[in-house]
Structures are given as C-alpha cells and as structure tokens.
C-alpha cells in the first residue's frame, strides 16, 4: 500500500476546511491533482497545495504532518482506508465517516466523529467537546463506529448517540452520554457532573466514582461480564496501561436511569 504524504508548509491564518482530505477524494489523483483540490481558507477558495506539500499519488493510506489544529473536517464521509495525522488536528475530524480509520498522534479539537456510522478514530492526545455527538437539533447522534481518546475529553461525550463505542483514557467533562439512546461509553478517568442526563438506553462506565443525578437510582454492585468485552477491546487497542485486570475482574456499582426518561440506561462505576 503506497502512502500519500501531505505535509503542511504554510499554516492557515484562519480556519481551513479540508473535507477533501479523505482516501476516496484523493484516490487515483496525481500529486498535482491532489494539490489542486479546493479547500476553504476562511471565506476564500484555495487549493490544498497552497498549504500542503503532497508526496505520492492518492491512495488509501494518507499521512498528514504539521500542526493542523486550525484545519477542520479532515476525513469527512470517509468510508475506507486510513488517515494518520502526525500532530494536532482541528474540529470535525472524521465527520460522518462510515469506515476506515483515522489515527491522530496529537490532540483533536471539538466534534470528533460527529454523525459517524462506522470505522474508528483514535486520538492519542486529548480531544475537545462533543466527542461522538449529534449536531445541534439532531435527535440522534452517531450510529456506529468506535472513537478512542487516550487522553482527556470535555463535555457532552456521545450526546444522543444511538450506537457505537466511545472510550476516553483520561477524564471526561460534564454531561457524558447526555440524551444517549444506546451505545457504550467508557471513561477510565473522572467524569464531570450530570453523567447520563436524559439517557434512554445505553451504558456509561467509569473506572472512577462519579456524582450521580437525583434521577439515577443505585441498583446493585455486581460484576458486569459484558463489560469485559469492551475492556478487553480497549486493552488490545492501546489502553493496556489504563485498563488493568482488576477492572476486568472487579465489581461495579450499577445505577439505572434516567428516571425521567425510559430508565433503561445504566451507569457503571468501578467499585473494587
């Protein structure tokens, strides 16, 4: 598999929108074909080549280098292949992706994997708000896929998610899993407040304790066997240091909620 290397040579002055960076759009294009792809630099139409030096023709394996924290929408609608980002990346990475993998060796901005339906996003650093969330007004969020953040993530992780698996290696902000319809969120670190507010179904698990809303009721402390599947998958995907045997074997406090809604969701907090 040949690699397409995109190296940032001119950092954008204002946000750069590059939804064209995905294996499907680049596929079959020559270096100059790729450099001629249109991007939006603020309100100005520009070419990818104005910002990136391209090496190799378009294939399914794309490498990006440089500080892309002001570059938005990389991997939009991606369905196959792999994008590796050596550095930080801006908002909306992997928006609407349905397959393939995005690997970020740095931090990601807000809105990682919005409207995702499949594939995987791995962020080795921290992520911003709304990891795997629905856009505003949308009643259902991501419908599949996996998002693994090794570091911290902020508020509204998995807002309204309908299916899929989100894992945070560090801490989470407030409203983790808010309005969740189903799916699984695991936070290895501390969660902020109001976890699971409005959730109908789904699982939010944490390896730490967390404050609970008054509408979540404690059920029992038990060993949720199914959770092992998720924890094992995390161990196999770079969380081995964080997910330990005690977490696989241990007991969790189960809270069910949200009492205001269906009350079929659960928050599992590692007990011992």
């Amino acid at each position, binding site marked *: 598999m040949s690699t397409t290397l995109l190296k940032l040579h001119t950092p954008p002055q204002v946000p750069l929108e590059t939804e064209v960076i995905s294996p499907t759009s680049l596929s079959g294009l020559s270096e100059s074909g790729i450099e001629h792809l249109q991007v939006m630099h603020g309100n100005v139409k520009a070419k990818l080549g104005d910002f990136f030096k391209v090496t190799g023709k378009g294939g399914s394996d794309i490498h990006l280098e440089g500080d892309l924290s002001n570059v938005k929408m990389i991997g939009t609608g991606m369905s196959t292949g792999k994008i590796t980002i050596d550095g930080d990346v801006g908002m909306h990475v992997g928006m609407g992706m349905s397959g393939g993998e995005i690997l970020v060796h740095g931090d990601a901005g807000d809105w990682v994997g919005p409207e995702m339906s499949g594939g995987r996003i791995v962020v080795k650093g921290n992520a911003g708000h709304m990891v795997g969330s629905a856009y505003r007004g949308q009643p259902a969020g991501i419908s599949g896929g996996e998002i693994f953040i090794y570091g911290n993530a902020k508020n509204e992780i998995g807002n309204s998610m309908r299916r899929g698996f989100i894992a945070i290696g560090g801490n989470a902000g407030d409203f983790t899993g808010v309005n969740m319809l189903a799916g699984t969120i695991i936070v290895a670190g501390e969660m902020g407040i109001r976890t699971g507010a409005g959730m109908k179904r789904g699982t939010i698990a944490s390896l730490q304790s967390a404050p609970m809303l008054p*509408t979540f009721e404690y059920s029992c402390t038990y060993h949720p066997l199914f959770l092992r599947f998720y924890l094992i998958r995390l161990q196999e995907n770079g969380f081995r240091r964080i997910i330990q045997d005690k977490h696989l074997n241990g007991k969790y406090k189960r809270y069910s909620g949200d*009492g205001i809604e269906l009350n079929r969701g659960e928050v599992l907090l590692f007990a011992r």
Partner: protein
Amino acid sequence: MVEATQTKSKESKNIKIVKDATCTFCGCVCDDMELTVDLDEHRITKAKKACVLGRAWFYEHTIDDRPVVLIDGKEATLEEGIETAAQVLVDAKFPITYGLSDSTCEAQRVAVEIMDIINGSIDTTTSVCHGPSGMAFQGVGESTATLGEIKNRADLVIYWGGNPAESHPRHFTKYAVTPKGMYIPNGKKDRTVVLVDVRRTPSTPLADIFVLIKPGKDFEVLWALRALVKGKKISENIEKDTGVSREVLDDLVSRMKNAQYGVLFFGMGLTMTRGRHFNSGAILSLASDLNEFTHFVAKPVRGHGNVTGADNVVSWQTGYPFGVNFNRGFPRFNPGEFTTTDVFSRGEADAAMIIASDPASNFPKKAIEHMKKIPIISLDAKDTCTSKIAKVRFAVATYGINTGGTVYRMDDVPISLRPAFDSPFPSDQEVLEGIRNRVKELLKGDKARLAA
C-alpha cells in the same frame, strides 16, 4: 446620573411630548412612556412611567460633542469611515459581525446582508445571553406565551435564576405579578409568586415563596422536579446535594400541577452557569411536562432591548438564531465554532464589526486580547472599551430616542419606535447601508466571492 441632574437646571420653551414611546433598555420594551423632550437641549427631561433603568436610559442619551467617525483615532468623514470599514471587511478572510442587541431590526437586516455578501459571520449578544436557551429550544421546543397572556391568566408565576427587580424592573408591575388581568381580577392577590435563586436579591421580597438553592445546582433541582411531576423517584440526598428539601419540592410540584395557568420565567442564572443549554432545556422541558396536567409556559427573561429582534432577524434570514457563518456562501450554524467568544478566543477572526455592544469589556480576557490585534469597526451611541480599540469608530444615533424602527419584546411581540428628537449622528442602519453599498461596489466582478 450625575449629568442628568446637572442639565436639569436649564429650561427651554421648545418642549415636545412623545406619548406611548418605547423604552429599549431592557427586554421588557415598555411602550407606554410619556417623554418630555427639550428640543433645544436635545434631551429628554422627563420619562413618565419609566423605571429607574428606563429613566437613566432616556436621561443619559444626550447629544455628545464628538466626531462622527474616527479612523485610527483621527477624526474623519462619514464617507471615509465607510470606505475604510468596507475595505477592512472585504479584505478579511474570516470577518465577524457581533452585537446588534441595541439596534433596530432594520439595521440588523442590513448587518446580516453585509455578512452574506462578504461571506463573513454574524453573531449577536444572544450568544452570551440566552443563546443556550435557543440551543435548548432546538432540542426540546418550548411552551411559551406573550406577556399579555401571563398578565391575563397566570395564577402561578415562578422566577428562576433571575433578579427582575434590578434587571427588568417593570416585569413585575407591568406584565407578570401585580397587574390585573382578564382572569386575574385582583392582580397579585390572585397569583402565587415563587422565586428560586442562589441568593436573596431585591426581587426576593416580592415572592410568596423563596427557594434558596445551592449555586450550580439548578439542573439537579429542575431534574428532580421533572421526575416528581412525572411521579418518578428521586434520590434521598436531594436536600444535601441542592439545598432544597423534599418537602419544598413536593409543595412546588403540587402547586405547579394544580395551577390554572403557570409560568416559569428564567434568567441567566441558568444560561451562564455550568450546564448552560441543558439548564435551559431542563426548565423548558419541565414546563412542557406540566402540560400533561395543566396549562404551563416558560419564558426566558431576555436582556437588552432588541436582542429578541436580532434572534428573529438572523433566524428568518438564515434559518439559525445566532452564531451563523457564511464562509461558504450559505449559512452554517454551530455554537462554539462560529460564536464570537470562540472565534476571538481561538484567534480566528481577522476583522470584526461590533454594533451596539461592548465585547472588549465583557468578553473573556483571551478574547479581548485577540480583539486588540485585529481591525475593529465599531458602531455605538456611546464610547465603550470596544470603540476605544476600534480602527474605525462610528458614533451613531440612539435607537428609540433618535431613530424609529422595529424592536421585538422578549416575548417576540414587535413594536415600532417613536423617536423623541433628532441626532446629528447617523443611525446604525444608515451607516450599515453605506457600508453595504460600498462593499457591493468593491466586490463587483469578484464572482468567486459573490456566488457560493
């Protein structure tokens, strides 16, 4: 206030009375003012029916002796100001227009148009006021009413996280608490007033029931109320967590369910604290839930004069209420991405037009630091921290005092203004129209920018 008393000593024969004028200081937009205008002195000497804020609003708007336009601090003509402003906007790659809560809808419409033409962003003070309530609305909807309906019918009035006595003084007396209404013949006697807040304020004495809540616990209390209204269980630790006892909650729930027509007014105690849009969403949902049992509405108590108009204008022109970006030749909406605080704090905007607001004094430090690095165009009736750092500063007439136009009350009722006296300054609408026309000329032939 000092100046108002100083000018009082002068007398003039050229007096005009403006009846049923409208005060645009706060979102109450009271339209029953009787203004006494000294036309020689260019000032309002008396504002009958105005509250303390309204009086300050009317008395303080005199005609200052200051240049219409400053460019880089130097006096310039209106045409030069418009030219420079248009150049700044056209040259920018990520320009944003912000403010507009103290402008007429007519001016707001032109402001949106300019951003549409140059593919910029438009945001209003809504984003740092009840923007989160707007986002909550997009999630859950709302049950609401015009203020007259509340005057006529509401027998249970709950204020949550607000202090109308100081922020909207006539909210109590003109609309929601003391006035007599169609089915509220005895005014306040026929209503139960509940106040929920983290501290006692000058609003507190008016309440029949005051609920003191721990700071930052509004969501938890609202959530508990929603559960109780639906007959669901809540945690036994509720009092420990929130400062509100189960008895108080049960009493509130029973009052709400048994009211004939209930209203929940809420303030920025919800939108500006942790939880933001979810806090607003919780209270909107509570009101909706209560409609299973009785008639119930909820209303944000909105701030500046025409911030509601700004929401309406931006919505009808773009489909979204605030934080709208036109970079790609069509409107996009994403709070946190295209809202002003964020585009400043992240250092994204490369030019800004600030209309009738003062982000340089009330935005976070990091945002203000960025503002100082980019060209700012400011339009304001007063000098502010923002106008001080502006590249182009327009002094404009005050809406409602010097200019007519349309404003929307906090309940979306549109009202036409009755100006009291002329100003030598142009209205913001006129300045904006000048900028719009010039921008159009500058972009002529630039098909790439004109078409998406």
